[in-house]
């Protein structure tokens, strides 16, 4: 995910956690950051404003004030609202009780319709249905060839007419062909067009009137900016489509356009496309999309896990020790065990905003780092664990030999440990993120 944005929300989160109880002003300040994050995710500015107003109403309610952790509560309200707005649970396409089910794909140029059609063909075939792909884009050079190739790889037939046939006629003919062939799903890939091109929009209206599809899907680029509302609004006005298929979400786009389009049309997002290969199609999950738009990683599960794993009392004790600078390697060892109780390091890091997603994709998190740290600490004498400053050169060599590590590693551990003590001392509260980071840098 987008580092910069995740960072912003981390700041919000930290700020919120800093406050004991939230005032209306605290919430407003924090929500301003959330608004920024939404805008950076390409949510339309009006949609963002409405959303914030709605969250504010809820957040300022008493349940938040009563809660022990108001900061997390606000984040939760934001997240829950967004998830609810994005459609609650995943929704499927309408299937006709009498086959074939006709599905029409529409959208702007370059949004990914033809690839999406190929993916849907494969998706339905995998579900045991017999699909047909119709190449109704007679305009873009080689669009028909592309549809043919994709149909072949999806293992479904492709219907097309080479000569300058009217797309309406192609679609009508395709239905009788599909019926003959015993197909139960027919996918119509239409040409990309601008929503303000009346003539081209009218062509879609004509196709719709003639074939009466059971489902019209708007295929939209997940990287779309503020214009998503105009585009989706116009397609809606002409066609009253049924759902949205959001593409190119395998990159780092935050996909705020999803919320904009849904808000302006009221139509659900049904599928997301996450790669160029034909199997890269997924059902839409509102909760995942909400995290993505907010750039939160999977922060909520992290909060829950952390709450379970780290016993409040213990955390307080550690905090005290840290502040008094009496934090020792022994405490550190204990803390390590608790962190390990939360799951794999890679998994935990993935859940922390700013540390998840792409940030660490290229660095493979070395699980053995933990083991090595543990081994080094276990090779220390009790006195060394309590007073690391006495660990001189010969002690370092001994610890390295005893733990099967190198002197350099021992040096690094000692240095990081003292840095961490200083750093954590400055924190008012036990801060998981920094702690995770300091551990991470041990590797």
């Amino acid at each position: 995910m987008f580092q910069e944005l995740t960072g912003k929300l981390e700041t919000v989160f930290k700020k919120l956690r800093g406050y004991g109880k939230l005032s209306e002003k605290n919430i407003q300040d924090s929500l301003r950051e959330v608004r920024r994050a939404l805008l950076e995710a390409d949510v339309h500015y009006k949609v963002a404003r409405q959303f914030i107003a709605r969250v504010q109403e809820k957040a300022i309610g008493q349940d938040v004030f009563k809660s022990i952790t108001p900061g997390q509560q606000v984040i939760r309200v934001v997240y829950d609202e967004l998830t609810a707005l994005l459609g609650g649970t995943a929704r499927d396409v309408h299937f006709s009780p009498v086959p074939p089910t006709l599905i029409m794909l529409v959208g702007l140029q370059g949004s990914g319709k033809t690839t999406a059609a190929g993916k849907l063909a494969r998706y339905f075939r995998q579900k045991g249905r017999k699909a047909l792909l119709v190449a109704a884009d007679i305009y873009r050079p080689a669009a028909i060839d592309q549809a043919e190739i994709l149909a072949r790889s999806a293992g479904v037939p492709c219907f097309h007419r080479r000569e300058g046939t009217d797309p309406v006629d192609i679609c009508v003919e395709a239905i009788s062909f599909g019926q003959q062939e015993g197909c139960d799903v027919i996918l119509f890939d239409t040409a990309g067009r601008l929503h303000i091109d009346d003539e081209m929009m009218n062509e879609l209206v004509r196709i719709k009137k003639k074939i009466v599809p059971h489902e019209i899907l708007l295929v939209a680029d997940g990287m779309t900016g503020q214009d998503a509302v105009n585009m989706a609004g116009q397609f809606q006005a002409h066609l009253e489509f049924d759902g949205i298929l959001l593409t190119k979400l395998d990159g780092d786009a935050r996909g705020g356009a999803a919320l904009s389009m849904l808000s302006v049309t009221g139509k659900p997002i049904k599928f997301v496309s996450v790669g160029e290969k034909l199997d890269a199609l997924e059902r839409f999950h509102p909760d995942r999309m909400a995290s993505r738009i907010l750039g939160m990683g999977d922060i909520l599960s992290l909060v829950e896990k952390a709450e379970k794993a780290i016993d409040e009392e213990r955390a307080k004790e550690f905090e005290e020790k840290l502040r008094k600078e009496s934090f020792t390697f022994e405490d550190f060892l204990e803390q390590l065990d608790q962190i390990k109780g939360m799951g794999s390091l890679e998994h935990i890091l993935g859940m922390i905003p700013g540390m998840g997603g792409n940030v660490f994709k290229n660095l493979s998190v070395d699980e053995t780092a933990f083991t090595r740290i543990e081994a080094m600490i276990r090779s220390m004498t009790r006195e060394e664990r309590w007073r690391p400053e006495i660990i001189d050169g010969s002690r370092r060599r001994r610890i390295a030999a005893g733990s099967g590590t190198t002197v350099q590693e021992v040096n690094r551990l000692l240095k990081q440990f003292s840095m961490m003590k200083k750093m954590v001392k400055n924190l008012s509260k036990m801060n998981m993120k920094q702690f995770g980071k300091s551990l991470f840098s041990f590797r």
Partner: protein
Amino acid sequence: MGIVERLREGLQQTRQNLIGRITDAIIGRSKIDDDLMDEVEDILLQTDVGVNMVSKIIDNIRDRIDKESANAPERIVPFLKDEIRSVFMTERAPAGPLPPSSSTRPHVILMVGVNGTGKTTTIGKLAYRYKNQGNKVLLAAADTFRAAAIEQLEIWADRADVDIVSHQMGADPASVAFDSFKAARAREVDVLIIDTAGRLQTKVNLMEEVKKIKRVLTKQQEGIPQETLMVLDATTGQNGISQAKRFHEALNLTGIVLTKLDGTAKGGIVVAIKDQLNIPVTMIGIGENIEDLRDFDPEEFVDALFG
């Protein structure tokens, strides 16, 4: 879902032109106040220039209002246009593609970008333009990945009446580029334009692939390709920055072609890209026809941004 109804109503007005909206906001005001600035902020946000750029522009306008003690609301629009224009005024390269001079023949242009932005179409348009200027043009089909990409470029070569070098689908794109360069030299071609597959900027292996294409060319001759252009879809929002950044890091872009400006999207993200990364916009695409390519003109762009 009551909120959806409310939103839908509110959003109906978004097609109204932006200058019109500022003018409405100005009417009946005697000075520039916070409400007016909020209005300006909304209008800027709508162009996709991004929150950071919006804050920056607003701050600069406030400074100027203070400095020039200009508090007449009519001043807002000129200030706004000035601000954005000035971002492009630091332009180093002249707008538009450089005329290939015979000493640096062939002039090689590498086209890159994410999927579906209009690379292949732009190449068709550009080939047509160079050809009409009396140049010998060669196209290279180095998108060997996407279904029917080669056929698509062949059709454009045909339309522009220029030659094309292509291999089989699935062939190594770098070797297509290599062969096309050899052919360009042998045939004394003036302009060689290389099409590449669309790729998301976050895909490490695909970015390596396109780096290799460039490397192979540079190895043939220092300074080749002379131009590496990223094609950016005007409907793109804030992700445009990530696209420009990553492609620039990988390939050292010489310019951006902003396509699909014939729609309702403003393409404001290029303002942020220019400001942050100093990559100039050289051309714009305004339609699907072979003539629908223009040199980028900051004046026109700024007018269109609020038009």
